[in-house]
């Protein structure tokens, strides 16, 4: 096996071993890896594993897509016109440090307890970073490319399609990857309050219904695993031929 595969596996094995040793020394700490694996097995048998993962992914998908649909055109608009950016930037900067979780009461006020509130929180979490990243990406376009596009006199629509969008795409994909990570963080938190399915719900529910800490940790492990899969999928986009130029390590 190659080094690049062996080393990560060694790291995981070492972490599992440390975990096992720790709970042998202090059994009350948290459930051990074997108990957690059994917990995941139990969830799978009861049909909850797939159901909860799908429920969480469903919320992320809609919240995240809605954010992209609004943030990218908005960011383009703000990035192209100095005036729009100057007007919008302060409010974006003020909203940015407010955790999406601070919106929970307002989300419940507007949308009640349920899916829509959770989706709204995810939408908010992805919206601001995507808008700001799109705006910055437009600012970072090499002026030479814009000058060339002007020189050839190509019409506005073609200029969008052939210059503006491809020029920002590498940065946009990185921002989309980061925003998806944030969305995944937030869905779990949102599900702890507002809904009755999903991995966040699993964690709270397992504790409330009989202190099943093996299932709590099982939920955490699943969140991590799904998160890494999402990230790997997004990373594949960075290997598209038309965006590879934008990453320095090439």
């Amino acid at each position, binding site marked *: 096996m190659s080094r690049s595969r062996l080393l990560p596996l060694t790291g995981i094995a070492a972490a599992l071993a440390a975990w096992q040793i720790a709970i042998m020394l202090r059994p009350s700490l948290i459930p051990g890896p074997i108990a957690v694996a059994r917990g995941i097995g139990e969830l799978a048998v009861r049909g909850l594993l797939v159901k909860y993962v799908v429920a969480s992914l469903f919320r992320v998908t809609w919240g995240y897509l809605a954010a992209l649909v609004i943030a990218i055109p908005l960011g383009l608009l703000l990035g192209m016109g100095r005036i729009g950016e100057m007007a919008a930037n302060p409010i974006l900067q003020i909203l940015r440090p407010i955790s999406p979780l601070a919106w929970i009461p307002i989300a419940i006020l507007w949308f009640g307890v349920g899916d829509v509130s959770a989706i709204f929180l995810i939408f908010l979490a992805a919206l601001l970073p995507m808008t700001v990243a799109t705006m910055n990406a437009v600012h970072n376009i090499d002026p030479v490319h814009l000058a060339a596009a002007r*020189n050839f006199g190509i019409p506005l629509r073609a200029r969008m399609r*052939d210059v503006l969008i491809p020029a920002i*795409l590498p940065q946009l994909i990185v921002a989309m990857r980061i925003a998806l990570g944030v969305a995944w963080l937030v869905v779990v938190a949102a599900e702890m309050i507002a809904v009755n399915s999903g991995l966040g719900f699993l964690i709270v529910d397992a504790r409330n219904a009989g202190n099943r800490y093996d299932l709590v940790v099982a939920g955490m492990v699943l969140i991590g695993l799904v998160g890494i899969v999402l990230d790997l999928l997004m990373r594949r986009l960075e290997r598209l031929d038309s965006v590879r130029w934008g990453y320095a390590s090439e």
Partner: protein
Amino acid sequence: MKVQFSDVSMRFGAMEVLQHITLGAEEGEFLCIVGPSGCGKSTLLNIAGGFLAPGSGSVTIDGEPVTAPDRRRIFVFQERGVFPWLTVEGNIGFGLFDMDEAGREARVAQYIDLVGLKGFEKSYPRELSGGMKQRVEVARALAVNPDVLFLDEPFGALDSITRLQMRSELLRIWRAERKTVLFVTHDIEESVQLADRVVVMSARPGRIRRVVDIDIPHPRDLSSRRYIELRDLIFGEIGLAHQV
């Protein structure tokens, strides 16, 4: 005159960049503009390209005042002007949005051939050397059949061997296509190798010190007496002794 600068002056804030530039380039002429760094030669070219408005004076092409960039006259930047997200084909066909598919393909193939990039049609710029990227940019400019080319130190980022090759390529293409060329460089040798006339500019604020006719037929012998004479004349004009 194809391109005519009439008493063009330019300042950026308090800094005077160009002073009273009057200069004409004839149809089909290869004109080099040389001068020390910061003498305003790039600014002059940008004004002719329509990217900058002159502070005073005017530029006309075919008698029409230049007010904006136009696809009949294309600006060639250093090789970073190619679009890194498009293939060689995509770059060269970039300006041909108004042609139908078949015409476009034929035109792209013609210019890929002209600049010697056959076999690299599907390559991306990151897979090409600096010289090849520069060829793509020249081909992209020529493909729209402009009547004037503005080149702003196009070979400045290339190594010296590639630079020499690119110069003879450019001359070959210029002979084939007969465009009016305005070529800015700080390389005196380069100007004497390429130009019909060399415009020598002073340090900032840029003025025209002298216009030198290069009366050596192509292909030019770089060790001929006339070549060395003209080269040294320009060196002297810029105030450089040709010694290291």
